[in-house]
C-alpha cells in the first residue's frame, strides 16, 4: 500500500466509521419502527444482514488477493488476503452468533440447518482452516502460497457448497437459490436504516483491514531490521 493511500485511510476511515456506526445504532434503536408482528428482536436483522454480506465480500477479497499473489508474487497481495481472512472470520462468527440470537426467540430453535446458515457455517470452517494453516506454517513464502491455494479453492467451492446444501434441504431442486428472508421492507425508514448499517459495516471492514495491514507492515519491518542486525553482528564477528 502506498503512502498516499495509507494517509488518506488513516485520517478518513476511523472518524467515518465511527460516525456511520453511531448513526446506525441510533437508527436501529431509536428511529426505525418495530416490524409488524416480529417484536423488538427483529432489529438484529439490521446488523446481521450487512455483516453477513461483508463476510462473503471479505472471502471474495481473500480469493482475489490469493490469485493475484500466486500470479504476481508480490507479498502485498498475500498480506491483504491474510488480513481480510482474519476480519472475515470475525464477521462470520458475528453472523452466526447474531443469527442464533435472532432465531431462538423467532422460531424457538437455536440452529436451523437451512441453506444459507449452513453455508455460512462451512465458510466459517474454511476460514478457520485458513487461519490454522497460516498459524501452522508461519510467515514464510511457502506458507503464503499454501494459504493462497486454500483461498482460491475455497472460493470456487462456496457456490457449489451453497447449491448442494440448498438441495439437501429441499425435496425438489428449484432453479436457483431464492431470496427468502428479505421480507418486504415496506417502510422506507427500514430501508434507510439498513442502508446506513451497510455503509457502517463496509467502513468498519475497511478500517479493520487498514489497521491489520499496518500491523503486518510493521512486523515485516521488524523482521527486516532483525535480519540486518544479525547480519551486521556476524559481519563484525568475522571481522574481529
Amino acid at each position: 500500500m502506498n503512502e498516499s493511500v495509507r494517509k488518506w485511510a488513516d485520517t478518513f476511515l476511523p472518524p467515518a466509521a465511527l460516525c456511520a456506526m453511531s448513526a446506525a445504532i441510533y437508527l436501529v434503536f431509536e428511529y426505525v419502527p418495530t416490524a409488524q408482528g416480529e417484536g423488538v428482536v427483529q432489529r438484529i436483522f439490521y446488523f446481521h444482514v450487512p455483516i453477513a454480506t461483508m463476510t462473503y465480500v471479505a472471502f471474495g477479497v481473500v480469493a482475489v488477493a490469493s490469485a493475484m499473489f500466486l500470479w504476481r508474487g508480490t507479498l502485498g497481495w498475500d498480506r491483504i488476503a491474510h488480513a481480510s481472512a482474519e476480519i472475515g472470520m470475525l464477521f462470520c462468527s458475528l453472523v452466526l452468533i447474531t443469527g442464533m440470537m435472532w432465531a431462538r426467540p423467532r422460531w424457538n430453535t437455536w440452529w436451523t440447518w437451512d441453506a444459507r446458515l449452513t453455508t455460512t457455517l462451512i465458510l466459517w470452517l474454511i476460514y478457520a482452516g485458513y487461519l490454522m494453516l497460516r498459524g501452522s506454517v508461519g510467515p514464510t513464502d511457502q506458507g503464503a502460497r499454501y494459504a493462497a491455494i486454500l483461498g482460491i479453492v475455497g472460493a470456487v467451492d462456496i457456490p457449489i457448497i451453497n447449491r448442494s446444501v440448498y438441495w439437501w434441504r429441499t425435496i425438489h431442486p428449484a432453479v436457483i437459490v431464492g431470496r427468502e428472508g428479505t421480507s418486504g421492507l415496506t417502510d422506507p425508514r427500514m430501508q434507510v436504516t439498513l442502508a446506513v448499517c451497510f455503509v457502517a459495516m463496509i467502513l468498519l471492514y475497511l478500517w479493520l483491514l487498514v489497521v491489520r495491514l499496518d500491523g503486518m507492515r510493521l512486523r515485516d519491518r521488524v523482521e527486516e531490521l532483525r535480519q540486518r542486525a544479525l547480519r551486521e553482528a556476524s559481519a563484525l564477528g568475522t571481522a574481529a
Partner: protein
Amino acid sequence: MLALIRKDLQIELRTKEALASLLLLALLMLVVLSFAFDPTSALRSESAPGALWVAVTFAGVSALNRSFVAERENDCLQGLLLCPVDRGTIYLAKTIANFLFMMAAQLVTVPIFVFFFNLPLSWGLVGVVASLGLGVFGLSAVGTLFAAVSVRTRAREIMLPLLLLPLIVPVFIAGVKVTARALADKPLADVAHWLHLMIGFDVVFLVVGWLVFEYAVEE
C-alpha cells in the same frame, strides 16, 4: 504419466500394509458406527448411507495423508520434481493413483457394509459403487492437492482433515443422497442433479488442482 501412476500404485501395493490398514480403518469405522445405532431400530437402515460415507471419508483422509508422508520422508518428492515433468501431470498421476487405491479398498468395504447393515443384495449396489466412484474421485482431487500442502505444515496429520472436510461437503451430501436412492432400489434418474453436481465437482477441482499444484510443491 502412466509411469507415474504405475509407480505410485506399485509402492502402495508392494507394502500390502498400506492397503490393509486402510481397509481395517474403514471396517472399524463401520463397526463403531454400528454401535452408534441400535441394531433393531428402523433408524439403522436409514442411517446406512451416511455411515458408509463417513467411513469412506475418514479412511480416505488417512490414505491421502499417507500418500505424501512416504514422499516426504524419503525426499522422493525432490527427486520427482527434478524430472522434466509438468507439475500438473504429477498432480494428475497422484490423484488417479489415490483414487484407484481408495476404490480398491471399496471392493472390500462395500460388502462388509452390506452385511453389517443387513441390506439386500440388489442391483442398487451398482448405483452405490458408482456414487462411491464419483465421490472418491472428488475426494482424491481436492485431497491430493491439500495433502501435498498439509504434509509440510507443523500440525501434519490434523491439517488435512481440517482443511479437507469443509471443502468436500458437496460430494459428501451428494454421495449420501445417491447411495440412499440406490439402496432403496429407486431409479437414479430422480437424483440426476446430484450426479451432475458430483461430476461437476470432480471436473472443476481436477482442473483447479492441475493448475495450482505447482505452487504447492515449490520450494
